[in-house]
């Protein structure tokens, strides 16, 4: 499925559609859900391949355990629930049953971040990247839009080992990533562990993941209007992080901003800061959720209230440039 730039599609929808496509191509693909198949969009797969779909009920730990057993026995299991329940709720199951033996369980976690909206703090996973990233053997991917989700789901199905795919609830803009890439690296396809430069700049580099890539592109426009040339880099793979690419950006810009719909603790911002701290230290200003829980509200109101908009990224870019040495 190809998604048209300019339209709006939820990454969870792209996940569901890609799963159904993959079901035809991969007989070993199985899907598990925990009473959220209508929300995680695994329902489309369930309908087409009922014998390869297992609704485990409201029992996430049991679901991850079964996924581990399926993976240990030659199947490629995708297990879905909301991101809060796909990480914290099942952390020891992920750790001992999945990551320690490096089993190929693909955790596709939807409703991540603040844009869950009205359900409030209990349902807003702002720590899941940190949790997933801390587990050895885990790959962590946060797609920016529907096309990147499609590519990431396909990559997850092919890759060996545990995989954490972070998806969102609301419809978000389909970005012109392929077009942007064509201008840069001659139509470079999606590659796990390889960041994507969506816009070249000279003054400041903005590294973003998930929905925040869209806000980062808007921020670059705002900055351009003020005479600042900002680069925008889509870091879809948080782990293994493209250390070369991140270091190259640090060298090129001398200062970086990170933007993610996640706590500033342990996510993309941390990963980037840890990397450049060791390879090429430059100021890294993190745009993300401060160390606090979310609350109920519309996604847009929450993004504003928690400092996750293009304007916030623009302001952070100003601080990053001011902090740059020399």
């Amino acid at each position, binding site marked *: 499925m190809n998604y048209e730039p300019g339209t709006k599609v939820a990454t969870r929808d792209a996940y569901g559609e890609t799963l159904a496509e993959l079901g035809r191509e991969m007989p070993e693909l199985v899907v598990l859900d925990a009473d959220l198949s209508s*929300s995680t969009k695994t329902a489309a797969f369930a309908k087409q391949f009922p014998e390869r779909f297992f609704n485990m009920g409201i029992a996430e730990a049991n679901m991850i355990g079964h996924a581990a057993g399926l993976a240990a026995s030659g199947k490629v299991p995708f297990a879905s629930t909301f991101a809060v329940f796909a990480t914290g709720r099942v952390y020891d199951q992920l750790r001992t049953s999945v990551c320690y033996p490096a089993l190929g369980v693909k955790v596709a976690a939807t409703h991540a971040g603040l844009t869950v909206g009205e*359900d409030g703090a*209990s*349902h807003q996973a702002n720590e899941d990247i940190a949790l997933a990233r801390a587990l050895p053997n885990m790959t962590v991917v946060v797609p920016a839009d529907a096309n990147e989700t499609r590519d990431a789901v396909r990559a997850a199905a092919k890759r060996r080992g545990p995989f954490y795919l972070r998806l969102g609830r609301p419809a978000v803009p389909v970005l012109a990533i392929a077009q942007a890439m064509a201008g840069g690296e001659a139509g470079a396809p999606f590659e796990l562990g390889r960041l994507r430069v969506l816009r070249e700049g000279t003054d400041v580099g903005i590294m973003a993941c998930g929905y925040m890539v869209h806000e980062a592109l808007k921020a670059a426009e705002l900055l351009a209007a003020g005479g600042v040339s900002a680069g925008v880099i889509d870091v879809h793979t948080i782990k293994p992080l493209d250390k070369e690419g991140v270091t190259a950006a640090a060298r090129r810009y001398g200062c970086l901003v990170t933007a993610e719909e996640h706590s500033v603790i342990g996510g993309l911002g941390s990963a980037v800061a840890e990397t450049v701290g060791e390879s090429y230290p430059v100021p890294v200003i993190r745009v993300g959720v401060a160390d606090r829980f979310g609350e*109920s509200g519309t996604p847009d109101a929450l993004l504003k209230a928690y400092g996750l908009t293009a304007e916030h990224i623009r302001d952070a870019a100003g601080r990053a440039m001011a902090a740059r040495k020399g």
Partner: protein
Amino acid sequence: MPTLTTDLQQKAKVLRRHVVRMVGEAGSGHPGGSLSAADLVAALYFHFLNVDPARPGWPERDRFVLSKGHAAPVLYAALAERGFFPSETLWTLRKLGSILQGHPDMRKTPGVEASTGSLGQGLSVAGGMALAGRLSTLDYRVYALLGDGEMQEGQVWEAAMSAAQFKLDNLTAIIDFNGVQLDGLVENIVGVEPVADKWRAFGWDVQEINGHDMDQIVKALEAARQVRGRPQAIVAHTVKGKGVSFMEGLAAWHGKAPSREQMAQALAELE
């Protein structure tokens, strides 16, 4: 002279009307499981629970833990009617800055005893409160309301075992057995029957009632507090969406707000 039963039935209707309006005004939320629990919640808040709206933190108060936290609207409606906050607050449900979060937040809402929303956790918290009551020689009671789908969580049974081990006779679990969860019928997803036998096997005193029959609800709650040496489970057979014809029994109304027209129709049915 209104009897206790008719009085509580009237209260339940008020709660149902509030639920419909709250979720309708919010544009999102969970009407189905709020409506199925309205009679149970009405009996608790307007007859059984020894609480004082002027002192929400009063140490001797009874505790109610809404383990199926998505039914927050019916809890908020009861708290407002009981005087914990003005009823106008109900129309701020799920809005930015509101004290009424999508799922219960014990730090934001007076009268809310536990922060829930992640299913399967409430009975353990209630067990801790019951233990504390015993330790402090306070004779308050603790009630927890669980969903039937929620019983699929293993933690529910961990709590069931420990409560029996600790002989928590000051703890009552009420199961809102409406037969429906999010994706469909409980029996088609992961069946939980025989529910009463399960709780019995875990060492609990068990009563099985019609969760919309106020006489039965009152009698069961009365009987539960006479039980010594064991926690008590009340398995309440209910109908998801009870009271709103087009919502009854349907998983589709688990987590969907009514439109303006649907809201008007629902309120008319609840006159």
